[in-house]
């Protein structure tokens, strides 16, 4: 078992005191990011990415991925105590989590949420440990056509599986690709779409887009809604934790199902948010207490939290093995790899063993550290949320500006950040999904390169994307994902309705 040896080597890397410290720092920052409105996983990681420029890639990824785990944990705190989802994927947690807190069971709800998150993440990390090396080995044989087919599949699943109107997803995604195309064309060395502005020579950096669209856009949305925090006290003590832990194994079936849903949705880039809703919905339909869901059922906290965390973690599987991130945060991490001089994709498993296995080992340890940190520090984090928004908002604005500036040491980027922020606010209000746009900005160059190289090989014939069984089946899967809503509708129409 070469993988097990590599994994233990990874643990040795992670267990260096410096990396352990970064892990704690990352988790703490991550939970704070998850708790604060207007700061989410993706733009939190984007803002803090420049801090890691001087670190070794392995230490950097440990800190950044721990910020991500922390943000995943943190979202649950605000959902349960304040009925405000700190992150989109914790919306489903508010349905039963907040009623539990209102009944005075905040401690139980929080313990259930954190533990479920941990279980979901653990399941996904084990999956990554076992599957990612195999996928990477397989993907090493991919030519440009296969590479493009994987991108095609990823983007089609966004269109077909997302809950936003498909044409809005297409528009948002294509704008992302177009923004990625601005500037120097890496294949011919020609400038394009700059219209004579020297500022656009290097194109649009996706980090600026992430900070603007998600960070500034969120703050504007929060301002519009005029948040007032009415929180519940966070009573969590060892007795409550142990009591809840005794109760949780009863929901093993819900847990397992949510893990599977989460991993599936995380690997296909549908992401953590739909995973949490889907898992909650299915748990509600199948549970014997289904009709009590929404009034404070612990199972209604277990299901979405497990799925969200499993999805958030599983999103790193395609990022590591194929170079295709499963979520905006995974996309930011992928951008980090490029900045640190690593080439994301299957070759990582061959050339950067320390890095890959250090990251995977840090996922195991990071989630354990995360569980301990959140269980012990809940009152502290709840206190952070009680700081009024008129203090938090300008500080977040300043942090976003600094984050945007430090990417390229350019003050023009800070202006672009605000432009993206206003665009993000309007698009979000009009129900345009932002994640596909960000992913398209990140992957645009690579997708285009794969596309053009394939066409170069075939002298322009599109048949190259169906020229062999492998590329053909990936493309077909993509087409199925693309037209999934239509297929589903036809299917239900053709099938006679079952007697209810």
């Amino acid at each position, binding site marked *: 078992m070469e993988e097990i040896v590599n994994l233990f080597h990874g643990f040795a890397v992670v267990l260096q005191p410096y990396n352990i410290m970064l892990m704690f720092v990352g988790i703490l920052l991550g939970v704070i990011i998850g708790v604060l409105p207007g700061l989410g996983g993706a733009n939190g990681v984007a803002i803090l990415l420049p801090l890691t420029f001087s670190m070794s890639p392995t230490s950097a990824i440990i800190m950044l991925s721990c910020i991500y785990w922390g943000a995943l944990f943190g979202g649950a705190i605000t959902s349960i105590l304040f009925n405000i989802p700190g992150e989109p994927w914790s919306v489903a947690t508010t349905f039963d989590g907040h009623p539990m807190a209102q009944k005075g069971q905040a401690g139980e709800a929080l313990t259930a949420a954190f533990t479920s998150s941990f279980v979901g993440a653990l399941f996904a990390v084990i999956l990554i440990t076992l599957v990612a090396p195999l996928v990477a080995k397989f993907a090493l044989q991919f030519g440009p056509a296969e590479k493009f087919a994987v991108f095609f599949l990823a983007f089609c699943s966004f269109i077909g599986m997302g809950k936003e109107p498909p044409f809005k997803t297409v528009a948002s995604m294509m704008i992302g690709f*177009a923004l990625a195309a601005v500037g120097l064309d890496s294949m011919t060395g020609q400038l394009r779409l700059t219209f004579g502005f020297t500022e656009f020579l290097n194109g649009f950096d996706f980090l600026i887009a992430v900070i603007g669209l998600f960070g500034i856009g969120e703050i504007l949305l929060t301002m519009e809604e005029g948040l007032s925090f009415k929180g519940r006290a966070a009573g969590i003590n060892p007795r409550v934790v142990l009591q809840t832990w005794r109760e949780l194994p009863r929901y093993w079936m819900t847990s397992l199902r949510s893990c599977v849903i989460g991993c599936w949705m995380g690997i296909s880039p549908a992401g953590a948010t739909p995973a949490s809703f889907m898992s909650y919905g299915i748990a509600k339909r199948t549970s014997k207490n289904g009709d009590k869901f929404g009034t404070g059922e612990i199972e209604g906290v277990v299901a979405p939290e497990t799925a969200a965390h499993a999805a958030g973690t599983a999103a790193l599987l395609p990022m590591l093995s194929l170079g295709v991130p499963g979520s905006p945060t995974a996309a930011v991490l992928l951008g980090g790899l490029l900045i640190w001089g690593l080439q994301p994709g299957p070759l990582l498993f061959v050339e950067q063993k320390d890095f890959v296995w250090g990251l995977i080992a840090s996922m195991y340890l990071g989630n354990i550290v995360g569980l301990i940190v959140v269980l012990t520090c809940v009152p502290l984090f709840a206190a952070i949320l009680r700081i009024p928004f008129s203090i938090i908002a300008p500080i977040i604005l*300043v942090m976003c500006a600094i984050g945007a500036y430090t990417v390229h040491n350019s003050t023009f980027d800070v202006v672009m950040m605000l432009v993206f922020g206003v665009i993000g606010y309007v698009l979000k209000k009009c129900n345009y999904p932002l994640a596909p746009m960000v992913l398209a900005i990140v992957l645009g160059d690579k997708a285009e390169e794969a596309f053009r190289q394939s066409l170069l090989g075939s002298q322009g014939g599109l048949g190259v994307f169906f020229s062999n069984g492998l590329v053909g089946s990936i493309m077909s899967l993509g087409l199925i994902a693309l037209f999934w809503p239509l297929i589903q509708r036809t299917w239900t129409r053709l099938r006679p309705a079952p007697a209810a």
Partner: protein
Amino acid sequence: MTDTSHAAASGPRHRAVELGVAIAMIAFGALVMYGSLQVGIGWGAEGPKSGFFPFYLGVLIILSSVMNLVTATTLDPQQIFADWSQLLSVLSVVVPTAIYVVAVPWTGIYAASLVLIAVFMTWLGRYSVAMSAAVSIGTIVAIYLMFEKWFLVPLPKGPIEDFFAL
């Protein structure tokens, strides 16, 4: 949340904004196609020319935006995007931030941030000057220590930072 049934709630109509967004996207798509045509969308010596891929992106942007435009016309014409008071609070963030991002190249990030946080707190949060000063100074000192000292990332500085020889 916007109250759609309330007749007194006034603000820009949601449908108008949706239509505007779709039209803006069509214009953007056209711009992308135009830019692609400038660099060539055909087949060159080294394969597809630079404009080849973006040209079809432009086509797709226009096609999908036209669909969105058609859908938007069927929206409830009474529903509002946000009422004016909500937009006012959004603008109360956008305007100071716009001034801030324009000021940063001249003043440096520390001085501009100090003013932004302090103005925000006294104006929107109605905090006392002492409290605002304490929080804003505390924040920029923390940022200075974290970025310049701990992680060694230099931030833009202006005459005021130079005066303090930071």
